């Protein structure tokens, strides 16, 4: 009994100011946290959907690339050149230089990498080929 009395004498209590406000604040915070968690689930779904769409976009771009390749093959193969009249007299020399450089670069590139070509490397090579064809047309 004496011990119990001693213990009760040692206990301290603190009165909380505006307890209803504190309760309301805690509950509102809890509600907001739960809503954020709900939002997080929504965010995950959106992100997943976006990744799928990006993947689909990649597939579509590859298909478009293939169709364009087919179109190029269907068009007649000609060695059309722009008429010399369009070019100014000083330009042909410059173009010629660039062409030579491009050809040199094109000749050097296929020799160097003997490793497995990544998708980017393949696309880079394709781009270079298209660029050189465009140069030869103009």
């Amino acid at each position: 009994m004496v011990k119990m009395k001693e213990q009760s004498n040692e206990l301290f209590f603190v009165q909380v100011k505006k307890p209803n406000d504190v309760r309301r604040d805690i509950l509102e915070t809890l509600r907001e946290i739960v809503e954020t968690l709900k939002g997080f689930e929504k965010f995950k779904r959106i992100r997943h959907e976006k990744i799928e769409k990006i993947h689909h976009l990649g597939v579509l771009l590859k298909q478009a690339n293939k169709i364009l390749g087919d179109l190029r093959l269907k068009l007649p193969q000609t060695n059309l050149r722009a008429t010399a009249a369009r070019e100014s007299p000083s330009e042909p020399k410059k173009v010629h230089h660039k062409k030579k450089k491009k050809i040199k670069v094109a000749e050097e590139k296929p020799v160097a990498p003997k490793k497995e070509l990544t998708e980017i490397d393949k696309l880079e090579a394709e781009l270079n080929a298209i660029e050189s064809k465009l140069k030869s047309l103009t």
Partner: protein
Amino acid sequence: MPVFVKVDEYKEILDVLEMIKSKIKEIRATLGDINALRNEEDAELAMWNNTINEVEKKIDSIDRIMFEPEQTW
């Protein structure tokens, strides 16, 4: 110098062009979807930011109240 294409090949080319046009439409629609999803993501992140600000304010208020008790006994 004019270039001539056989009629059947010409038709094929037109078909391929139609295919490319429809593919481009599809690509444009997919890009639109991705854009919309990105906007949704951004909106969600902005909402989280606001929520965290609100939560921070409330926690500060609770902290203030708890730090200044009415009385003790």
